[in-house]
């Protein structure tokens, strides 16, 4: 009944036998203990569970773990490298882009992918780019500011 899967999560190869119906988010949280990815709605509306699947943002509450076979998965725990925050994480801290923090990991993952596609987005593009992620605390304004901060930081780092 169980299926063997092999995938890479935050740079580490993982091999497990899982039930075919096990959701990716439950695999990350319950099997790997990566609890930074949150569940907010189980219907892929709120985006709290957003991770990167081969570099594309995906809502891990509506992906089966077996579908991630062979994939590179990045979760919020994989964003800071060597103790250095990702610019988007830094932006959320600098600009008060979070309050309760529950939507934050998903929001950061979505924002990181948005900036990978559009390194210099206008406010409007940021707002539309984050439409798949709900936040009930911040009213989004500081999140937009956080993403702009990150864009500036990443631009400076790339030497443009």
């Amino acid at each position: 009944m169980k299926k063997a899967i092999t995938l890479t999560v935050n740079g580490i190869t993982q091999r497990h036998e899982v039930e075919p119906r096990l959701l990716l988010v439950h695999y990350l949280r319950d099997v790997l203990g990566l609890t930074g990815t949150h569940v907010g709605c189980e219907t892929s509306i709120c985006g709290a569970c957003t991770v990167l699947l081969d570099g594309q943002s995906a809502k891990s509450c509506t992906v089966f773990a077996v579908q991630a076979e062979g994939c590179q998965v990045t979760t919020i725990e994989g964003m800071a490298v060597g103790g250095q925050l990702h610019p988007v994480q830094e932006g959320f801290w600098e600009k008060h882009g979070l309050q309760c923090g529950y939507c934050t990991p998903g929001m950061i993952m979505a924002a990181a992918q948005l900036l990978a596609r559009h390194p210099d987005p206008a406010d409007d593009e940021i707002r539309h780019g984050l439409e798949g992620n709900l936040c009930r605390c911040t009213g989004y304004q500081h999140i937009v500011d956080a993403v702009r901060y990150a864009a500036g930081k990443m631009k400076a780092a790339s030497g443009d």
Partner: protein
Amino acid sequence: MSDRFVGKSVKRTEDPRLIQGLGHYVDDVKLADTLTVAFLRSMYAHARITSIDASEAAHAPGVVAVYTGKDVAQKVGPVPCASAGAIPGLRIPDYRVLATDHVVFVGQPVAVVVATDRYAARDAIDLIMVDYEELPAAVDLEAAAGTGPAIYEAYGDNIAYKLTAGEGDIDAALKGADHVITQRIVHQRLAPVAMEPRGVLARYLPGEQELTLWSSTQIPHLLRTQIALMLGMPENKLRVITPEVGGGFGSKLNVYAEEALLGWISMQLGKPVKWIETRRENMQATIHGRGQVGTLEVGYNNDGTLTGLRWNVLADMGAYMQLLTPAIPTLTGLMLSGCYKIPAIQINITGVFTNKVATDAYRGAGRPEATYVVERALDLVAAELGMDTVDVRRKNFPKPDEFPFKTATGLFYDSGNYEAALDKALGIADYKALREAQRQARDEGRLIGIGVSTYVEICALGPSQAMPAGGWESATVRIEPTGKVTVLTGASPHGQGQETSFAQIVADQLGVDLNDIAVIHGDTSIVQYGIGTFGSRATAVGGTAVYMAVEKLIEKARQIAAHMLGVDAASVAFNEGKFSKVAARAASAAASTEVPEPMLPAGQAPAGAIPEPEDDGKKVSIQDVALAAHLAREIPPGMEPGLSATHFFEPTNFTFPFGTHIAVVEVDRETGAIEFQRYVAVDDCGKVINPMLVDGQVHGGIVQSIGQALYEEVVYDDQGQLLTGTLMDYALPKAAMIPRMELDRTETPSPVNPMGVKGVGEAGTIGATPAIVNAVVDALAPLGVRHIDMPLKPEKIWQIVNQQS
């Protein structure tokens, strides 16, 4: 007290863990051998349960236990309501943690499965066979209040209570007015939708006979007391821990059936059990907010002066009482004066049972309803008189020298300067230019509206006399032997950032580094009894408790420092973390002014009161004193060792923040969609500890108001089925629906507490909703529109535009 941190936009100390996914919400707490609990919930709004057969479920793979109402009816007490005894004639149905023979709303817990994992638990739920005999459901609020069938036969009708409040001769005030406007107004039901649903982890240790509940709650200590009563266990054997809490907005200011039941199950099985609410459960079975339908009557004279206001309201209780269900409409009654002089005010509340989940506190909790009624009233009056809406407001404001201002609802507003906030907002918006632009746009056939709301709210809940379970807050501050500072607060922040803002206060008082302070909350075994975080009280009441505890601690430290310096305590000054000997002349002033008088405006010491230290080189730091206090060899004879102080702060009054919100919208004639052109808010929440956090609170509140005004509505069909059971159906605002908000502030300190703070958590949800609706109504005014009920969905607006043009 230094000013290195208070008043500055200090980055949050909470954030490093949260932005890295390293925080621990309830579901992130993992205990070995934890079993999963899943609920079978009623699919009917109103039915008799004729039989439950759980035998197949009990034998399903992975299932450890199944419990139904019969198993717990005699074991776990009813869900508590804090209004018992406070509202005359109040009916409180006996609501148990699992239904036995009668279900009264869709989502009511009927049975639970305990299994080895969440998938097995969910599978087994489907194997429980329940036979229901469906009964007619009371869904529509006005119909339920009438002659329809009673949900509880013993009551004979669906009236939960009736209450009249207010002062002044309202009949005479309305009769004597030049004009009276009557308007029906609806406050739709809303779902709070904290992004983290509720969740409980319960662990009973049979040997120690100790139960620990990790719960996503705003009130750890009150929850502990109530759960102990429900389970019939000693309160000192129950520990409640609130780990990271992913938003509350009032929905976690409660005592829920699931919290008690999880505790009971863990006690039966001797193992940890966990339940994490699904979003569907959250929409069905976590409290809703608002839910009022009423008739406004406002009397006014030809010059725009208000003479009286009456709000006859049906308040939707839902099917039973949660902790504060019947109390919420009474808060509406308190705030019906708005920020105006209204000589006579009356509220007539009829609390009505319906076959829906209970209503209770949702961000603002009764006050948004009041503010909306009053602010709509002002616009209705302005429209009838042909006056500018701003002029009608000015006409009825109390002046700054009229504070404390007594209302006809029995309150004394602590301080205020309503015109200053209004003028500032009008200036930022450039109101005159906006009106001119509106005239031009109307000439072109465009529908532009400008909405103004001047609001006042009641915060810092509150004096204990006005609260069901204590209105104070507690704090303990101690300095450890290494000089690190530990703050234990009875407040229970869940996103507001008080780990940072309380540390800012303490850092300035003690002259220590922000990073040397740890603010601990939400663990009843570590923190002294506290009330919790709700009603915009954490900073004004809880922060003040911290402030007062530090002042006490400094006084003890001063005694020790004097001993170490070999001088009299009256000759010791404390500045920037150091005690030093001061010149004799100034010494008495130093001792007497260290604790500011409550009336002292925030952050202002009397000129010359803080003496210059005498530069004789003798200084001891607060850290030196802390070590000495613990070593206890160099302290005054007879003094208690250690350096710790606790304060339970009892406020003498509520606080009354206020402000002006201005929305500018354009209505699309073709689609009925509403687009924001501007949103300006000037809020006055008294002394500000951290401007960045205050802005965040205001932003979030305004966006929840945008949600209520334009999008959100809990909808049940006429059978009582919840149609908005997922986030696909319940429309929360998304980033692209929101304008960039332009915020500013005025700062009128509160005289109620020494820092002059007022509170800001709910300002946005109170001030913004009427500004938005007033703007849309103003946009449609050329079509003769005077009022539209929320939410202002495009189809509703389109129909209005296309019927009337």
